[in-house]
C-alpha cells in the first residue's frame, strides 16, 4: 500500500513537475528528402536571426493529408508542386500557390560494398535480378512520395518496371527507402540526390544520377499554411536568400527555374 502511494506521488511529480513551457516556435512540415538540407538551413537561420523553427519530416503526401486534417503546421515544403497547388486550390495556403524553392534529382543508390553497380543507365539491373544479386529494390511509396512516383516513372521509362516490381520494397517516405539501402537490406534503390549527398549516407553508399527526362521534373514547391507567425514568415523569406540557396545547392538541388 505504501508502494502504491509512492507510485502515485511519483507519477504526479512527473506530470506536475517542470512542464515543457508552451512552445510557440512554428512547426514546419517538410518532405523527407529535405531531411539534411533543411535541417542545415534551419540551423543557419537560427544562427543568423536567433529565431528557430521545429521541423517535422514525412512523405509529402502524408503531410498533405495531415494539413487537410488540420495539423498545426505554419509552412509546408513539398517534394513536388502538385500537393502544394492542390492545397492552394482548396484555399488552405495563406500565400496562394507559394513558391518553387528548388528542383530535385533522382539517383540510383547502392550500398558501398554491395553486389550491384551504381549505374545511372540501369542497364545492368535485369542481369543482377536474373543472377540473384539484386533481391530487394527500394523506392518510396509512389502514391505518397514524389520521389517514389519519379522512381516508378523512371523504371517504366527504362522498361524495367515489370522486372523490378516483384523485388520492390517501398519505404513510407524517401528517407526510409534510402535507409533500406544504406543498411544493406536492399541491394539498390532510387532515392533523391539530396539524401545521397548527405554525409551520413555518403559514407556507406554510392550513387549515380538518373537522366532528368526519364521522369516528370521534380519541381519542389513550398507555401505558408494557416495563420503563419512572424518566425515562419522570416524562415520562408530566408529560404529564398543566398545562404539557404547555397546550402540547397550543396545537397544537389538546382535553384528554381534553372533546370527547365
Amino acid at each position, binding site marked *: 500500500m505504501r508502494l*502504491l502511494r509512492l507510485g502515485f506521488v511519483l*507519477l504526479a511529480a512527473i506530470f506536475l513537475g517542470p512542464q*515543457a513551457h508552451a512552445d510557440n516556435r512554428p512547426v514546419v512540415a517538410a518532405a523527407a528528402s529535405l531531411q539534411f538540407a533543411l535541417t542545415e538551413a534551419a540551423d543557419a537561420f537560427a544562427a543568423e536571426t536567433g529565431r528557430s523553427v*521545429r521541423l517535422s519530416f514525412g512523405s509529402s503526401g502524408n503531410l498533405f493529408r495531415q494539413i487537410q486534417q488540420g*495539423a498545426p503546421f505554419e509552412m509546408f515544403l513539398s517534394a513536388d508542386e502538385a500537393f502544394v497547388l492542390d492545397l492552394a486550390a482548396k484555399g488552405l495556403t495563406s500565400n496562394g500557390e507559394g513558391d518553387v524553392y528548388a528542383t530535385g534529382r533522382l539517383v540510383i543508390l547502392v550500398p558501398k560494398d554491395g553486389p550491384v553497380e551504381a549505374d545511372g543507365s540501369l542497364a545492368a539491373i535485369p542481369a543482377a535480378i536474373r543472377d540473384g544479386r539484386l533481391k530487394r529494390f527500394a523506392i518510396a511509396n509512389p502514391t505518397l512520395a514524389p520521389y517514389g512516383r519519379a522512381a516508378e516513372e523512371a523504371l517504366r521509362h527504362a522498361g524495367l518496371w515489370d522486372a523490378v516490381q516483384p523485388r520492390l520494397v517501398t519505404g513510407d517516405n524517401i*528517407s526510409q527507402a534510402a535507409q533500406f539501402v544504406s543498411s544493406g537490406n536492399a541491394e539498390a534503390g532510387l532515392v533523391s540526390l539530396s539524401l545521397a549527398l548527405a554525409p*551520413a549516407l555518403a559514407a556507406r553508399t554510392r550513387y549515380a544520377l538518373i537522366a532528368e527526362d526519364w521522369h516528370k521534373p521534380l519541381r519542389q514547391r513550398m507555401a505558408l499554411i494557416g495563420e503563419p507567425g512572424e518566425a515562419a514568415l522570416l524562415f520562408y523569406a530566408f529560404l529564398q536568400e543566398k545562404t539557404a540557396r547555397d546550402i540547397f545547392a550543396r545537397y544537389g538541388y538546382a535553384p528554381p527555374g534553372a533546370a527547365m
Partner: protein
Amino acid sequence: MDWDAFTLSLRLGALTVLLLIPLAILAGRALAVSRFRGKPAIEALVTLPLVLPPTVLGFYLLSGFGAGSLFGGAFDALFGTSLVFTFEGLLLASLIVNIPFAMQPIQRAFEAVGPELREASASCGNGWWRSLWRIELPLAWPGILTGMALTFAHTLGEFGVVLMVGGSIPGETRTISIAIYDRVQAFDNAAAGEMAALLLAISLATIALTFFLTQRIGRRHG
C-alpha cells in the same frame, strides 16, 4: 537522445495513469463483485483494445475525431483545440488503448479479496467507501500497482496510434517511440540506439516489478 520526446512520453504516461487508474479501480471493483447477464460482454469490450490493431483505432480516431467530423468539430468548438495532431488527442487514444492493461490486474485483485471478507466488513458496519478504503484497497494494491506499471510502460511504447493521429510534432506529439523511428530515418543510429536502450530498460523494470507483485498476491492467497 531526444529528451523533449522522453519527457513528453513521461507526461503522457503519468497523465494516462492518473486519469485511468481511479476509473479502473471503480469499474474493476464493480465488475469483480457483481454478477449479471451482460457481464461477459462488458468484459470482452474492456479487453478489446488488447487485440485491436492500433492502426484500426488510429483510423477511427482520425475519421471520428478529425477536423470536419461531428465529434471533432464539437470538441474544437468547446475546447478550442483539435483532437488530431495534439497532445490531448494522444491522451484520449492512450486512455482507450490502456483500458485492458489497467482493468485486468485490478479486477483480478478485487476478485481475490473474496466475498467473505466483504461481508465481514459490511457486518462490522463499514459502508461502501470505508470498506473500499480500509479493507479492500490495502489488499488489492499489488494488482493496482501492476495496472499502473503496465499502463505506464505501455504508453511509453505505443506507436501505431501515435503515428496515425500524432503527426510527429516536436514537443507536442513526438513521443519517444516516434522519435526512435524518426532518428532511424534520419540515419542517426546513435540517438536511436540510446533511446531504444532506455525503453528496453524501462520495459524490463516494469516486467520485473509486475512479476514481483504477482508473486506477492500468490503468496498471500496461496
